[in-house]
């Protein structure tokens, strides 16, 4: 108790004496925690929006599609079922929009939104009996079609009738995955409307959602549903399939965020250790006094841990609140489970305590005789300083150079503490450059063709004619995609045939060679890993019952489908799969605008052709850029914290020397220069080291990640030299500016003041 009182006095006094530094420490830690939390949420939201949607819509766990209306009572009677949505009648239609045809399901739901699996309106309004021709479109479907509330939605029914309904609202749901990964697209209508559009019960099905008491029982309940509905049942899907469908191929994002987070944490730990260590060094005299008063070694160490740890914990608290606040503001509700939050906060707390533990232990070992250890070590002229003397640098620079390295450990910590954030910033810039490169050179990720044309209503010959007549189309490669069963794998892989083995589509081959004749193929990294084969191996797949035997002669960079894609020429496929071609991949002339070409083709063919733009993988990863910017900000903050520690320590070490220097005849400006040189040298060293390391690692890291995500190595790009140069300049400039302020203040202090 007594030591608590005495200790808290001391801590309070000490914190008061260095408010700015303490605040910066808190902010740096808070920034890291907030960034980690936001990143985790972004990741969760970006890669798995299912959880949030499911909670928001009070979703159903199991969905059954039946031919006739099922007896709801029997389903509700199943053990584990709590409530139900539906049964709703649902009819398939084809939405016709600007020459595109998209499969959709019209689902009849009441005008009062259901309790279970209630779609959440994001735009417009829910269905109303006042507007019988109004429909609500599922969000991803609406986005894919480019629909807004109020716009017409034209559709063909199975019988061939054409109807036009109007979009009344756009809603989110967890009933099914996103379009186009999950088809058909979902459109809600009123029962009366469905009766008009598709009166035939024989051409529709019934959809029932079951909400369970316990989601772990999903598998069991799904089995029982299958048994109960037996003949009637057409298919069943559960929330697991929906979640899997919603998950983006975002392992790249996840790994990068994790990397940034972990290294950021290490950097923050370093900054904390540095700050605490610097503080302890500056306080040795006071600590000795405390000991002469009767503080024990352990009490001093504890005191330091409490003081510096409290700052860290405060930062963690603030960061947690801030991070959750940000995600609340951005996503409305936080979809992050409590576990990651606890893990992030707890992990950071551990790191913080470990980081302050060492300096605290060191502080505890301060001998109680204050005189001897309190004096800063008078190093010999370091080698660098001697060099500076040799080349006749001004005295301030020589003195500063000498000072920079008098204390080895803090000098090292400062250099390292700046190098780590700088390295991460360089890596972030590299990721940015890689994304830019994706966008600028789509051919390098296999997207030479920027438009995919399907013949639609036209004959293959007509389609070919329209395409070949367009002035901006450089080459139209006929293509087909088929699914093939891999031996021993209970799943299919994509086989993509574009061009022929003589007129080859330019797949970006990163290893091996391009195929040159029928029976040869190139594969994505994901496929190689999945089948456990290497370049040069022969693989045997089954396409629609007939075997497909090809030799893999190379590896292509493959951003689609986790890289589990086999690419070959159409002539390698059996005729039944390749004639007529399923689509044409259009390689446009340099500088041609795909949207313009698309509009022209649609107009020329009288909306007969279906023309789709190819989505660049970088467009899906835009979220990454936000993350990069945020993390660079946090890393800069950490660097700044390190810098302030370094310059504060420098000042403390030199407080007594300054008077001597001035007495020796150094002008205030020279004194300032000495101090700035001392920190500046370390800054420059750290920044250059970090940039060099970052530039060295970035390509390898991204390629490694590319390999892991199936895309394959060969996509990594180092940041542009100009970008790097600017980053280095900005870092050094900001650092020197920050170092200059305390140095100038110190230089102005009159000699007599102690």
């Amino acid at each position, binding site marked *: *108790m*007594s*030591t608590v*009182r*005495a200790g808290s*006095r*001391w801590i309070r*006094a*000490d914190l*008061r*004496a260095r408010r700015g530094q303490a605040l910066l420490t808190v902010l740096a830690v808070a920034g890291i925690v907030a960034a980690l939390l936001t990143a985790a949420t972004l990741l969760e939201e970006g890669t798995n929006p299912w959880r949030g949607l499911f909670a928001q819509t009070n979703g159903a766990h199991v969905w059954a599609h039946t031919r006739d209306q099922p007896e709801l009572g029997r389903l509700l009677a199943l053990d584990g079922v709590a409530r139900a949505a539906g049964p709703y009648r649902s009819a398939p239609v084809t939405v016709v929009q600007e020459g595109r045809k998209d499969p959709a399901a019209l689902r009849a739901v009441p005008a009062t939104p259901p309790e279970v699996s209630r779609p959440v309106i994001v735009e417009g309004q829910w269905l109303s009996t006042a507007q019988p021709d109004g429909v609500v479109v599922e969000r991803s479907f609406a986005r894919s079609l480019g629909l807004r509330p109020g716009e017409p939605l034209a559709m063909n029914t199975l019988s061939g009738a054409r109807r036009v309904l109007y979009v009344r609202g756009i809603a989110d749901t967890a009933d099914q995955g996103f379009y186009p990964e999950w088809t058909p697209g979902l459109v809600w209508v009123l029962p009366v409307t469905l009766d008009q559009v598709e009166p035939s019960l024989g051409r529709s099905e019934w959809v029932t959602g079951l909400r369970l008491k316990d989601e772990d029982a999903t598998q069991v309940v799904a089995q029982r549903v299958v048994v109960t509905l037996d003949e009637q049942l057409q298919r069943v899907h559960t929330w697991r399939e929906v979640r899997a469908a919603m998950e983006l191929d975002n392992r790249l994002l996840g790994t990068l965020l994790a990397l940034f987070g972990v290294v950021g944490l290490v950097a923050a730990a370093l900054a904390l250790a540095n700050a605490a260590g610097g503080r302890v060094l500056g306080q040795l*005299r*006071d600590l*000795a*006094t*405390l*000991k*002469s*008063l*009767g*503080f*024990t*070694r*352990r*009490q001093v160490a504890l005191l330091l841990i409490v003081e510096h740890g409290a700052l860290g914990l405060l930062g963690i608290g603030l960061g947690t609140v801030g991070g959750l606040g940000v995600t609340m503001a951005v996503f409305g509700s936080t979809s992050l489970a409590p576990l990651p939050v606890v893990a992030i906060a707890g992990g950071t707390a551990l790191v913080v305590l470990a980081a302050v533990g060492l300096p605290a232990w060191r502080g505890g070992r301060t*001998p*109680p*005789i*204050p*005189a001897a250890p*309190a004096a800063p070590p008078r190093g010999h002229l370091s080698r660098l300083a001697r060099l500076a003397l040799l080349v006749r640098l001004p005295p301030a620079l020589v003195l500063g150079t000498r000072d920079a390295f008098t204390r080895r450990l803090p000098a090292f910590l400062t250099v390292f503490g700046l190098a780590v954030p700088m390295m991460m910033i360089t890596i972030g810039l590299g990721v940015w450059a890689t994304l830019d490169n994706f966008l600028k050179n789509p051919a390098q990720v296999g997207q030479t063709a920027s438009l995919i044309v399907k013949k639609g209503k036209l004959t293959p010959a007509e389609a070919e004619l329209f395409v070949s007549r367009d002035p901006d189309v450089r080459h139209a490669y006929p293509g087909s995609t088929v699914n093939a069963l891999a031996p021993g794998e209970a799943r299919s892989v994509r086989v993509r045939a574009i061009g022929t083995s003589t007129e080859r589509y330019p797949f970006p081959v990163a290893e091996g060679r391009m195929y040159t004749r029928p029976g040869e193929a190139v594969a994505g990294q994901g496929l190689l890993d999945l089948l456990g084969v290497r370049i040069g191996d022969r693989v045997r797949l089954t396409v629609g019952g007939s075997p497909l035997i090809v030799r893999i002669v190379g590896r292509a960079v493959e951003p689609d489908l986790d890289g589990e894609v086999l690419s070959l020429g159409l002539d390698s496929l059996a005729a039944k799969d390749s004639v007529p071609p399923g689509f044409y991949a259009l390689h446009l002339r340099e500088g041609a605008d795909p949207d313009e070409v698309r509009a022209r083709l649609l107009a020329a063919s009288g909306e007969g052709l279906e023309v789709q733009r190819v989505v660049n993988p970088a467009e899906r990863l835009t979220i990454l850029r936000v993350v990069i910017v945020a993390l660079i900000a946090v890393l800069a903050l950490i660097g700044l914290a390190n810098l302030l520690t370094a310059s504060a320590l420098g000042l403390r070490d030199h407080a007594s020397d300054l008077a001597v220097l001035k007495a020796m005849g150094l002008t205030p400006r020279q004194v300032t220069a000495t101090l700035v040189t001392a920190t500046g040298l370390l800054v420059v060293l750290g920044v250059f080291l970090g940039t060099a390391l970052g530039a060295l690692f970035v390509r390898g890291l991204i390629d490694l990640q590319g390999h892991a995500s199936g895309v394959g190595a060969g996509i990594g790009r180092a940041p542009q030299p100009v970008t790097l140069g600017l980053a280095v300049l900005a870092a050094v400039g900001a650092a020197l500016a920050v170092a200059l302020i305390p140095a100038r203040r110190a230089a102005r202090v009159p000699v007599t003041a*102690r």
Partner: protein
Amino acid sequence: MSVVLKAVNLVKVYTDSGVPVHAVRGVDLEIEAGEFVAIMGPSGSGKSTLIHMLGGLDARTSGEIWLDGRRVDTLSESGWALLRRRKVGFVFQNFNLVANMTVADNVELPALLAGASPREARERREDLLARLNLTERADAPPGQLSGGEQQRVALARALANRPSLLLADEPTGNLDSRNTRDVLRLLGEVHRDGQTIVMVTHDARVAALADRVVSLLDGEIVDDGRIPRRRPATGTAGEVIDLR
């Protein structure tokens, strides 16, 4: 009279610089309650080393130290720390105050550490500062005080727990004559109240205030003499001359 402090064949050898330095070579010393002992000697004779060992700030190489009848040289570092809280007050030539804490906090700190309630600590501090005429400076940081004022605050702090033993290493070494007089007057006062004091000094005029002067040379005691108390009120010039 009871013996407060006893040192038996105390030896200190510094070995950290490679060559062993025999700073203190077998010192025997007994200090009784209420005594005011000055330790004198030329620079490098081992005065600071000795007094540091007596306060447990530095470990002895061999020999014994007894405080209030208890052997203490075998104590661990934290054992010494606990002992210092209630029994030993320390004043250095420099570096006496925690720079970041106010004068008031500096004086209250040892009391709090020894287990006093914040109220007791405050009352004792107010009393001590009042006796030192430093009440108005209570909230100032030590850096704003003159050297003499700082040393008086340090003395107040060392006395805050009414220690059995006050150890002072050249408490006036850095001070001018007026400040020296202030500090010495304070020392004299607490001595008159019964405080046991061991003070290192190389100033003969300062040493003259003590009851007893121990002279060190090369780490050994070469002279240990009691000087009679000056009694300025009763003594006459004649008596002083007679004594000579």
